[in-house]
């Protein structure tokens, strides 16, 4: 009983007591509600049912059928995939590029640059979304002033259906590139200097060394970064909520914003839960595809 390895009743009871607060909280406030979301999506739960849940009726897949015929849902889905498939890779490539630059042995004040690049990551998303809304102002914004100084025509950033999503992507890259940069920098530390020297002896140039030595070693890091980035990008909400309210012409309406509008604004809760479940499905499918695509020699994750 005094040994950790005993696995006796006392150890089991102690383990249960230590696990209970955390696991109960996660189960009650997260895992069970997430599962309940699926059941909810099979009902016509609405504003009246919030007062008396017993009034909700089971409608089976009708919410999903309604979604399939809702043009706004497809617009939200298309916009979100645009954001994930265009914004995600841009963000990851920028992070990797900056990490490689900072990893160069020629860099002085590495810590200072790292801190500066990371600063936008810790800022409050709502606050910087408000700031960028003014930076994007077509008449008085700093961005168009910059374009003017370069002799370029002004852009109606958030006001045009074509530019609104690229504007949100630009802001997101600014806000987030420092995070993955840190992860890539840690990954780059694992690249053996001997490999670089061997490649150099073989006459490989800087680009070839990056392509044949750095990138293969970074493969596990790359997989981790691309999965977590995709999961995060699928959850786009605050930026359009603050900057565009999903407009103009629904060009920045995201899946989560659509879920929020359906569930918490119109109180079509069953419908909103169906949207939430679609989000879960997208996350799972995206993660599985990336795990499937990973290179052969990487180690399995946890």
């Amino acid at each position, binding site marked *: 009983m005094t*040994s950790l390895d005993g*696995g006796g009743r006392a150890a089991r009871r102690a383990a249960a007591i230590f696990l209970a607060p955390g696991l109960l909280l996660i189960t009650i406030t997260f895992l069970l509600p997430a599962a309940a979301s699926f059941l909810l999506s099979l009902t016509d739960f609405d504003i009246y049912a919030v007062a008396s849940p017993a009034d909700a009726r089971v409608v089976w897949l009708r919410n999903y059928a309604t979604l399939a015929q809702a043009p706004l849902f497809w617009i939200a889905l298309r916009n979100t995939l645009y954001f994930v498939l265009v914004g995600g890779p841009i963000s990851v490539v920028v992070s990797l590029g900056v990490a490689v630059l900072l990893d160069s042995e*020629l860099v002085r004040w590495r810590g200072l640059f790292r*801190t500066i690049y990371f600063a936008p990551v810790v800022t409050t998303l*709502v*606050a910087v979304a408000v700031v960028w809304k003014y930076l994007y102002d077509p008449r008085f914004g700093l961005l168009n002033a910059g374009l003017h100084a370069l002799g370029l025509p002004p852009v109606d950033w958030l006001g045009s259906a074509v530019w609104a999503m690229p504007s949100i992507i630009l802001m997101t890259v600014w806000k987030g590139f420092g995070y993955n940069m840190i992860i890539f920098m840690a990954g780059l530390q694992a690249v053996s200097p001997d490999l670089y020297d061997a490649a150099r002896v073989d006459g490989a140039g800087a680009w070839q060394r990056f392509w044949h030595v750095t990138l293969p070693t970074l493969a596990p890091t790359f997989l981790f970064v691309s999965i977590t980035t995709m999961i995060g990008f699928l959850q786009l909400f605050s930026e359009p909520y603050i900057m565009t309210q999903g407009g103009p012409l629904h060009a920045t309406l995201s899946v*989560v914003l659509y879920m929020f509008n359906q569930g*918490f604004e119109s109180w079509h809760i069953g419908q909103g839960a169906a949207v939430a479940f679609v989000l879960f499905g997208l996350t799972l499918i995206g993660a599985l595809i990336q795990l499937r695509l990973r290179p052969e020699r990487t180690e399995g994750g946890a």
Partner: protein
Amino acid sequence: MTAAGVVNPPVELRAARPARPALGRARGLAVGWRTVLLHVVLVAIAGFAVAPLLWMVSASLMPSGAATTYPPPLIPHPLTWVHYHELFSRLDVARELRNSAVIAALITASSLLCNSMAGYAFAKFQFPGRDRLFRLVLLGLFIPPQVAMLPLFILLRQLHLVNSYAGVVLPSMATVFGIFLMRQYVLGIPDELVDAARVDGAGEFRIYWSVILPLCAPVLVTLAVFVFMSSWNDFMWPLIVLTDSAKYTLPVGLANLSGEHVKDTELMMAAAVVTLLPVLLLFISLQRFYIRGITMGGVKG
């Protein structure tokens, strides 16, 4: 190619990567064009990173209407604190600051306790199904938090916790990431220390409190900084669960304010500064701990 690119540093120096800054000096003071070019690029990226934040601070100190003149001014002239006065006197920012601080502090304290207890149990206790249970918990990382929000809202409404601090705090008290971070760290603590305390007759809670927690001090700081920042910056859930403006946190209040005062650019910038300055200062003073949390989660995961 010039000297800086061609001359290979000695292998033993390269192996000791933390010592790299010394290489520049070892090579003499010749700074190649590559070094110059690299630093031009790095400074340009730094400008991109800080320009929006600098403009925010600058515009918050401009007189009303000055930021919306053409060409857009970069420096406040004359400089004024009037918008900060307005935020704290006429508007509700002081109350929102207090709400944010109380909620973030409650979440931080309770999550340190819940996550460290669970992380310790997963790392140091033997019980059947332990690793399977841990993997099951980790699967939670693939569930977007928004999926749980509608049922959670209905549950909290039944419990009369909508529009209360508790409604914001409860779902953040324990997190999959927090448990994972704690477990990874506690795994590195030798079993002998725990066994020795047990042989000395210490109870299980005593071992956790007096042996494990003190050894975990660095990772507890990391977790605290992480949790405090994410709860301070959190927006969607507080927006949903706090229905009365008297309970609003800073981000929710700011979103509300930005709808009402769209034309008051300078006032909005002052509100943005008040909202993000506390976490920015916290990061700058504790960044070592924060960055270690990212790499622990990222590389070992």
